[in-house]
């Protein structure tokens, strides 16, 4: 049930389109977009089998810049749209691109409940700690007390830890990357996409226009003399909960994850933080009672014959209520 499998040799260009991009110069979104193109090419996804589902925000515009079926949804709603698309046609590779406001404020309820389903989707969150497209208000990932450029007062709401929220919600693959570390980002998007289940990739994305605190320089630790970010895999971190893992292994992995998720400030972990193979996908759960689901998913089941007549045999349903 992996979302994509290597079939054709593809080039990053296959996923680019020839339209102007209207992000601000220097925006981290460019890095994410490039990585997405590259990752899809390396995975050999066919463009017509790729659906990119965007939320509303600067981030959500990413779907316009991919040669694919692009769906620009509503603010906060990309996950349910994507879920509908994927469940209707599981053959499609469905990637969600959304902002931190989109995902953790107005979309938080869907985020939490999408985790309960574990549908095979890839969710890339562009985390810039602000509402870019509405001109720089605080997003749910902006820490308490910070005052970015366009705030009339310091932020008086605390921040959500997206990794922890993903964990608690039930995402089965969780990673973090940095928008300008494209190589790493490509690798993570690929892994997230091939993961069979709901994957969440938190991408730290500088917004040069509105986030003047957590800037490129800050992430790269210009003040510290070393990058704030490190790759957990470099330190031998193993994120995998294998299928059928005993409860204690599960707990140990979760503890390990939570320790990493709590790190911030001078040391920010990136990389693959959790791969939980111990949870079935929603698609598998459907299959348990609808064994024909993957052969004839909702978008592909023929519903009428040549003459337009329904192919349904209503007899058993009628018999149930037949009185005479």
């Amino acid at each position, binding site marked *: 049930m992996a979302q994509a499998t290597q079939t054709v040799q593809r080039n990053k260009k296959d996923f680019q389109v020839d*339209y102007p991009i209207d992000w601000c110069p220097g925006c981290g979104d460019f890095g994410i977009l490039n990585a997405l193109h590259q990752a899809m090419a390396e995975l050999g996804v*066919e*463009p*017509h089998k790729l*659906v990119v*589902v965007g939320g*509303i925000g600067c981030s959500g515009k990413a*779907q*316009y810049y991919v*040669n*694919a*079926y*692009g*769906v*620009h*949804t*509503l603010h906060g*709603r990309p996950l*349910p*749209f*994507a*879920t*509908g*698309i994927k*469940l*209707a*046609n599981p*053959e*499609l590779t469905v990637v969600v691109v959304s902002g931190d406001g989109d995902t953790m404020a107005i979309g938080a*309820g*869907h985020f*939490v*409940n999408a985790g309960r389903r574990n549908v095979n989707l890839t969710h890339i969150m562009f985390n810039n700690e602000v509402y870019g497209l509405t001109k720089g208000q605080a997003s749910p990932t902006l820490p308490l007390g910070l005052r970015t450029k366009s705030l009339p007062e310091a932020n008086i709401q605390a921040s959500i830890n997206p990794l922890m929220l993903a964990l608690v919600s039930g995402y089965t693959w969780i990673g973090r990357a940095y928008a300008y570390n494209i190589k790493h980002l490509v690798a993570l998007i690929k892994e997230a996409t091939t993961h069979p289940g709901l994957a969440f990739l938190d991408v730290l994305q500088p917004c040069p226009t509105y986030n003047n605190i957590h800037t490129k320089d800050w992430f790269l630790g210009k003040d510290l003399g070393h990058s704030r970010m490190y790759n957990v895999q470099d330190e031998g971190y193993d994120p995998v909960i294998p299928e059928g893992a005993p409860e204690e292994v599960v707990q140990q992995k979760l503890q390990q994850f939570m320790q990493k998720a709590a790190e911030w400030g001078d040391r920010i972990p990136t990389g693959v933080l959790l791969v939980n193979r111990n949870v079935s996908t929603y698609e598998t759960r*459907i299959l348990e*009672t*609808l*064994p*024909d*689901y993957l052969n*004839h*998913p*909702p*978008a592909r*089941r023929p*519903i*009428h014959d040549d003459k*337009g*007549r*329904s*192919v*349904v*045999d*209503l*007899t058993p*349903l*009628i018999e149930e*209520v*037949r*009185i*005479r």
Partner: protein
Amino acid sequence: MNPEVQDFSWRIGGPQGSGVDSAARMFAQAFAMGGLEVFGRREYYSNIKGRHSYYDIRVSERAHRSHRDQVQLLTTFEAESLVRHAHAVVEGGGILFDEKSAEMPLERITFLDRRVREDLLRMLREQGQPETAQGLLHLARERGVHLFPIPYTQLTAEVAKAAGVPAGLAQRTLNTLAVALSAALLRFPEDYVKEAVARIFRGKDRVIDLNVVAVDVAYRYVSDHFQEVPFQFRLHPKENAEPRILVNGTQAVAMGKIAFGLTFQTYYPISPATDESVYLEAHRSFPLKNGEQGSVVVVQTEDEISAITMATGAALAGARSATATSGPGFSLMVEGLGWAGINEVPVVITLYQRGGPSTGMPTRTEQGDLHFVVEAGHGEFPRIVLASGDLEEAFLDAGRALNYAEQFQMPVIHLLDKALSSTTQTVPPFQADALPLNRGKIHTPDSSSSPPFHRFQDSEDGISPRVLPGTPGGQHWVTGGEHTVEGRVTEDPVIRVMQMDKRARKITTALNTLSQEEKFRVWGDPEAAFTLLSWGSTKGVILDTLERFEKRGIPLRFVQIRLISPFPAEELRPLLDSASPLVDVELNGTGQLARILRMETGREVDYHILKYTGRPISVEELTEALDRILNGTAERRIVLMQPFE
């Protein structure tokens, strides 16, 4: 009074959760199996256990489609039902009640609404009666109602003994006893009741056996004790009756959805819509004519916003997709509706209206959402709003809604209400080929064409070919923003106007494409000037009332609007011109259809007959209101209300 009734109404009342429902279903099935036509109406509180609910079953040789205020037989186990409904029994009718409940003081009936209690107490005091259920029974008897006190404890003891089971178990046959006692009083052959028992408890042989014993006990008790009572109503089985199914509104819609190709449904639980989705979940797998299994994927979402957007996603991917909800849920779907509108996505929303505004009266009926659904959503986009008037329409309209959505590429709102959803009725078996399926312009680009596909190409009828994700060469975008032909967001004024006009043109296309029958139906005497105008579930009571007036030699005409948006203004013109008076009948407080009519045609109605107590209109109520109009004593706005419903 003709005791061999053509038209018999039975009422059973009791606390929510005590089995009133299954008793009513058993009663309905027994008589339906006996070849009669059955119409059932259910009333209950927004509560799980304890509050008062009741069920009316109307049984007749020819089909009826509405309830009556007055019943021939009332069956109860406890005081609350007795005091609430004793007044509704006709002269010569009967009340079956637990002899122990008669002494209950009104003050001690927990869930009796304060206002009801006070009104009843006032009445009892005025009439010098004791302030107990007994007081109301006395008044009934004075009116010529026959009282049938039943020693239920003794009867269940008999059942226990006869079946050789413990008393506790026999207790559970109470409902069967009540049904059988009622049937016995009507001298209806007990075999039908037993058959109904067998159906209801299908698969549970021991339960069937026990309840069959109860039927025997009940029949015996009636013949032993009530032979002398001059209760003279009789119902006789009819031979060679036509085939029938017994379904309710949510089932009719769900079966229609399955029959006509639904493959994806989302829902968030809400009364009274939930039952439809639960039916679909339970019947998510069904055979196809070619022997394969068909299926509907049903997803319980986290809220209604997710329900509409997920269903829209699935529709976009190519599924026949729908969601079902009620007022509060629909209010949350408005933003999603607009997205489907601007993106021309075929998604169906089945809306079961209930008493509003806000939480309102979740388990009561209303036609309060009409104007809202027609205008719902910021900005302007076309939609279809279609209203069903009865169960057969509900079944077919479920299919039409799916067809329209794909044919005209727009969201379709299929309107029903709580009354229809909980109406149980005998109808001819539904047919899956009653309606051809129309999937509209689904396009596959030929291999030479290269993306982006022009999904929103201008077109004469406003409908552009659509390509489903997964189709090679068809890549394009969709967006809630105004968009270019390839679906990319744009703010270009010229393209904006083109796309707005293109979408708007689908309204004309739909109006030109649909048959008159799909837009409105004219019932009664097509030449009559006296014209009733209505929509949705009031159809039943209006048709039943029309028949009454016809018998009295007063020809009336009924225009049932089925397509509310787009509104068939032009085609209605001749009917409106010849209508005098034009009488609006609606289950809301403002006459919403009449307002739309005036907006669309300029024509004002002459009278409103409105009911907004959350209960459907009875034949008696409508008859009386029309009589007042006919004899010139009516106000322009007639508000109907039954204080004890």
